[in-house]
């Protein structure tokens, strides 16, 4: 017994020492890493994490008009949400809105990008025109469309009337309002989507097309078998970003319809705004914001899980 003891002891002390050195090294590299991360950690904490935790905190309270908490209510704000017809409608509207805007935006932008990718004289002009809506702010674009939709002197209704059709109450008819806002949004988003897709198109290796040409493949065959598959990472990016953006739409709703007619265009973000800054119910608004966060998180996770596997990275 007494023979074994010292050896174990030395072994243990040795192990201890090795462990300590290892841990010190780890700590050092951890601190070094932290040092590099510090600027972004500070920025994120102040502008993302702190507001996020504050929102979660607020969502469990009722507040006064200044947003100070008054009464703790636990899960009541959340429970109320799921029976609140206005909120449920805004969630429905948001999904419809995503459905109305994202696919058309991507398809139209793809067509424009494929056309603008041809090497023709003066194509630079068209590329500028197609991406120009990127430079128009949401407010300016909305006001511009507000005039097009105007029931008395709007251009769209004038065109309809001269071609013998009935005028449409674009922004006050519940059947049309969401479509009208979607059209505005599609127009606004095309610039950005077009630019990203064009960039994707230009980075496709030309040797692929050359070998297809040698084999005598047609234009649409090349489009289907080379362009679209090679573009899939760009598609994935564009679609994910567009969906997140559309979920957060606010400006055009505020300017065009203010959520009307009869909450027909009330999207989640607008409903949050109204709850917080018109009704001064910061607690309920925070609860909606948390739900929106979870929704977007789920949608994005779902996309990564389902779609990313099909994406072809070069």
């Amino acid at each position, binding site marked *: 017994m007494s023979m074994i003891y010292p050896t174990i002891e030395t072994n243990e002390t040795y192990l201890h020492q090795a462990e300590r050195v290892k841990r010190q090294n780890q700590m050092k590299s951890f601190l070094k890493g932290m040092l590099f991360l510090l600027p972004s950690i500070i920025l994120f904490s102040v502008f993302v994490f702190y507001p996020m935790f504050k929102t979660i905190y607020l969502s469990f309270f009722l507040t006064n008009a200044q*947003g100070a908490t008054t009464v703790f209510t636990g899960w009541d704000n959340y429970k109320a949400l799921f029976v609140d017809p206005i909120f449920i409608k805004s969630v429905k509207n948001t999904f419809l809105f995503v459905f109305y805007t994202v696919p058309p935006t991507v398809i139209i932008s793809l067509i424009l990008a494929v056309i603008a990718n041809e090497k023709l004289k003066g194509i630079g002009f068209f590329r500028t025109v197609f991406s120009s809506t990127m430079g128009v702010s949401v407010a300016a674009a909305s006001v511009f469309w507000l005039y097009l939709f105007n029931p008395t002197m709007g251009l769209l209704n004038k065109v309809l009337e001269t071609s013998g059709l009935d005028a449409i109450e674009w922004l*006050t008819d519940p059947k049309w309002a969401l479509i009208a806002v979607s059209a505005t949004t599609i127009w606004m988003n095309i610039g950005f989507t077009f630019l990203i897709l064009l960039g994707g198109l230009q980075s496709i290796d030309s040797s692929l097309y050359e070998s297809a040409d040698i084999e005598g493949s047609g234009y649409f065959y090349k489009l289907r078998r080379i362009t679209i598959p090679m573009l899939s990472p760009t598609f994935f990016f564009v679609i994910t970003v567009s969906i997140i953006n559309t979920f957060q739409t606010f400006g055009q709703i505020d300017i065009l319809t203010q959520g009307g007619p009869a909450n027909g265009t009330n999207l989640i973000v607008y409903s949050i705004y109204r709850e917080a800054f018109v009704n001064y119910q910061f607690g309920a608004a925070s609860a909606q914001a948390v739900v929106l966060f979870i929704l977007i998180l789920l949608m994005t996770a779902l996309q990564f899980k389902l779609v990313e596997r099909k994406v072809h990275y070069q």
Partner: protein
Amino acid sequence: MKKIMSILTLGILLLLTACSGSNTTSKSSAEDTKTKSGEKQVVTFWHSMSGAGQETLDSIVKDFNHSQNKIQVNAEFQGTYDEALTKFNAVAGTNSAPTMIQTFEIGTKSMINSGNIIPIQEFVDKDHYDMSGLEKNITNYYSLDGKFYSMPFNSSTPVMYYNKDAFKMAGLDPDKAPATFEEVETAAKAITKSNPDMKGFALQAYGWLWEQLLANQGALLLNKDNGRTDTPTKIGWNEEEGKSIFNWVKQMVDDDTFANYGTNGDNMIAGFLSGDVAMFLQSSASARDVIDNAPFDVGIAFLPHPEDKERQGVVIGGASLWMIDGKPKAESQAAWEFMKYLQKPEVQAKWHVGTGYFAINPAAYDEKVVKDAWAEKPQLQVTVDQLQSTKPSYATQGALMDMLPEGRKIMETALETVFNGGDVDKSYKTAVQQFNEAIKQANKARGK
């Protein structure tokens, strides 16, 4: 994990101290320039007047700044009443808060509850200022238990605007406007019949108009005497009074004589001016704008009421001026001087003629400008007559509660549903339910 948290907190602390540091420096430098640049006391005045209202207000402020050399009033437009109130709530209690702010009548209760204001009564008492010279109906609204919290300023009531030329075309008497819901329906039918391109009537989905149509029937908006005697616990109108408005609109929608402009008042006025609709309800504050811009004769009439109800009159709408707490004494005093200036008959006369808002000081109606304007545009006088023939009661005194902006949105949604052919019973029931829920929620949030 502990490390991360401590680093996080350190970072936040650093940033916060940095922020507050820069705040104090900017404040002191601002004060320096103020004292250096001259002896003038600067008063910041947030308002929500646009269009003709803004022009007239700016010119009044200019007159005031030239009339003396101690006070400089800076009038800043801050968007609609809703927007201005939101901004104010964000900066209340900080140095960015204005000296005085214009807030709409339904914000009265939430301003009082906010605790960021000085009741005007303090200045009235100190100065022995006489408020009894002001229009009785207006002081009725703004005094609570005999105490003034804010200074009345711009007040208007809803009136019915109509196109006299269209009335002539349809064989109606242009000098006798329809007075009841039923007469409006008949007139609307006649107009659309004589001119298929023109709708008879438009009602903006605007909660304020709904409140006025209720009050005109003598109905309360909230129980506990419209919140004047105690904190309201539910709605104050009964089903008959509430539904009459919905049914009235529904009837015209079914007759195809109703023009739907949703919640957009500007589009409605544009439609009226270009002859798309012959009658609409709107604040008298737009009177000057509409009369000046219409290429036809504009008539202005009292707000309609259901045939089987007597006309009770209207609630005073518009806004009042609030003194913000936490400002240097001299600054508040300067703002009080400006408020007093605004009540002078000659200033009120200019205000009334320039906009269509009332003169809150009736002495203004004896001023020459007003008499001339009335001779030229007799319509302006209708708005004043309507106010002065209002029967004082809790209904026409108006409701007080901090959830009223939310209540308006609820009624607007219900109205829009009916405009688009929705079922009256269903939309009415939902609206009442939501309205009661909002009252309950507001009471709960106050911890009562």
